[in-house]
């Protein structure tokens, strides 16, 4: 049986003779496809947003914390032991081939004062490499330099939130002086906003960066000189992250003289793992939303089947006439099948338009991140066509099995 253009033309004509009925039947598929597109778009958009945030942390980055301490039977949390040193960080950079750059930091929470404003925030003493590892540009001014490090200059770079709290929205902080622990610091830059780390982490914009040396000597104190809270390491590539992690562990165990059976006195954290975990969560969300929407597409298909069954019984006589003048069973089957497929295709196309338009509107008005991939569009549309075929087969088959004599007598 040749499915020519002719068959489609006939189907379109037949459908256009019942405009309201066809439109209502299509509506089911339209809503189904539209909601699949919109729901999956929202799910994927949320996933992409989380992924971008985590990648913004520096996707090649490894964090190394000191391990926990136990004091009087009470175990303190990660980072409470002072196990990591500046020398560890330098050794990692020097001896681990999979590591490109390292940086390290000392942190303390403190009050920052500007004029009559003050703000309690995290003071991070870092090295200039920190900016490279985090891949974090400044919005204004410059970041800390090697020279600032060497001379322990009292300069600072403000996080966006700190800058806003101390200077408001209008005043430019660069060149102004703030006081931290009674020491005046000249503001040399303001970071671009990064937002809070997804998953309840700290707000990255709520901190002040000062040179590590300045922090050690003038702010945080030098009870334990040379010790750091955290080491940042950047792997040479994303693929090298597991390798870098392994190398760092081995090196640190060796440097800390940990016996073979002994536990690490440090923890490493790999942002790629977190990113993948988050992406998986996003996928589950997408899948859930998508499958809920698919149900409505199937309901739309049942609507098509219903109308096609009505149509077959209404047109029993027509089927009889067509058979009498030479239509084969296949011709009748194809005719009805094409009708239901055309219904679902047109409904699907309108659904695509509505789904894309609707989700764009949602992202525009509701500031929801929406991501619509061509693949989803293709799958949703093919699914609609498939619904047309699956739910069209039964009525079409029923029509094609009619007895021409009885069909001709049908009133």
């Amino acid at each position: 049986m040749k499915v020519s253009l002719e068959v489609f033309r006939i189907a379109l004509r037949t459908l256009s003779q019942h405009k309201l009925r066809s439109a209502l039947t299509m509506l089911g598929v339209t809503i189904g496809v539209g909601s699949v597109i919109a729901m999956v778009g929202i799910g994927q958009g949320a996933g992409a947003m989380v992924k971008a945030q985590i990648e913004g942390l520096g996707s090649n980055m490894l964090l190394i914390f000191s391990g926990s301490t136990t004091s009087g039977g009470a175990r303190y949390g990660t980072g409470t032991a002072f196990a990591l040193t500046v020398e560890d960080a330098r050794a990692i950079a020097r001896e681990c081939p999979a590591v490109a750059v390292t940086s390290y930091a000392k942190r303390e929470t403190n009050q920052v004062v500007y004029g009559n404003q003050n703000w309690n925030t995290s003071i991070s003493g870092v090295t200039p490499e920190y900016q490279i590892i985090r891949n974090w540009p400044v919005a204004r001014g410059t970041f800390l330099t090697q020279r600032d490090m060497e001379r322990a200059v009292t300069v600072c770079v403000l996080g966006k939130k700190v800058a806003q709290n101390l200077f408001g929205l209008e005043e430019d902080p660069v060149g102004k002086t703030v006081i931290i622990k009674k020491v005046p610091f000249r503001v040399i830059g303001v970071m671009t906003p990064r937002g809070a780390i997804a998953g309840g982490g700290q707000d990255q914009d709520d901190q002040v960066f000062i040179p590590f040396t300045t922090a050690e000597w003038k702010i945080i104190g030098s009870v334990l000189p040379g010790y750091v809270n955290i080491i940042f390491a950047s792997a040479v590539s994303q693929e090298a992250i597991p390798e870098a992690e392994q190398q760092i562990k081995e090196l640190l165990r060796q440097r800390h003289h940990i016996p073979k059976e002994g536990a690490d006195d440090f923890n490493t954290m790999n942002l790629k793992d977190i990113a993948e975990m988050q992406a998986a969560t996003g996928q589950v969300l997408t899948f859930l939303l998508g499958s809920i929407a698919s149900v409505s597409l199937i309901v739309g298909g049942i609507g098509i089947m219903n109308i096609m069954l009505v149509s077959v019984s209404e047109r029993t006589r027509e089927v009889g006439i067509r058979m009498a003048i030479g239509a084969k069973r296949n011709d009748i089957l194809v005719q009805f099948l094409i009708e239901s497929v055309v219904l679902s295709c047109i409904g699907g196309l309108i659904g695509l338009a509505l789904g894309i338009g609707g989700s764009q509107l949602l992202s525009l008005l509701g500031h929801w991140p929406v991501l619509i991939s061509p693949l989803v569009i293709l799958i949703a549309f093919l699914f609609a066509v498939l619904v047309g075929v699956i739910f069209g087969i039964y009525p079409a088959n029923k029509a094609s099995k009619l007895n021409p004599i009885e069909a001709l007598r049908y009133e």
Partner: protein
Amino acid sequence: MTEPVDPKVLIVVRDLHKVYRMGEVEVHVLRGVSLKIEEGEFVAVMGPSGAGKSTFMNILGCLDYPTSGNYIFDGQKVAALNISQLAEIRNRKIGFVFQNFNLLSRMTAVENVELPLIYGGVPRRERRSRALEMLWAMGLKGRETHNPSKLSGGEQQRVAIARAIVNQPILILADEPTGNLDSGSAEEVMTIFQRLNSQGITIILVTHEADIAQYARRRLLFRDGKVVEDTAEITVGARRAVPLPEEG
């Protein structure tokens, strides 16, 4: 086939039986019909309702298989053909004309006439010109794009005839073609049938009306599933009257 078929013989039926099963009851509609119809004949099938005329026509029209007995149409044993092949025979060799016209109401006159050509696989452009030609031959110029509801009964039946002959069939089966027409239109339609018959097309029509049957050159009278009278046997004169199988 056991015996050679005369090339001029279009239809051979031998001891045709048709039994319908309606629940528990078996209804014996045809009880052994045997006859031959030659090419170019004009046959009227008559008889009271329930005599088996329509069933006989359905079998002749390849819309139905007989329960038993032989039907050879144009040299082909119909029982040996499958449903698809029957559809092809209906499309290429047989034209149907019905009492209630049976036009597709949502299509124009010319589209109705085109239908058999669509299933015959005729290309679009040729289809349209052949359909128009047929309509014009039926005197329907100017009515081509009318829907059936906008046409009179006589006009509708002429559209139906155009549809029946557009694929150049060798047989036309007409089931009470004038039953729904006034006498003027009926006469028109019968004149058309005569003209087609004179062009060599075999015509078999069912009718109740004696004056309509006058147009035919041979009459078959059905009663209780059997042919009880066949004018061919009388006029052709051959005394070899087909022995009609008796009941029981």
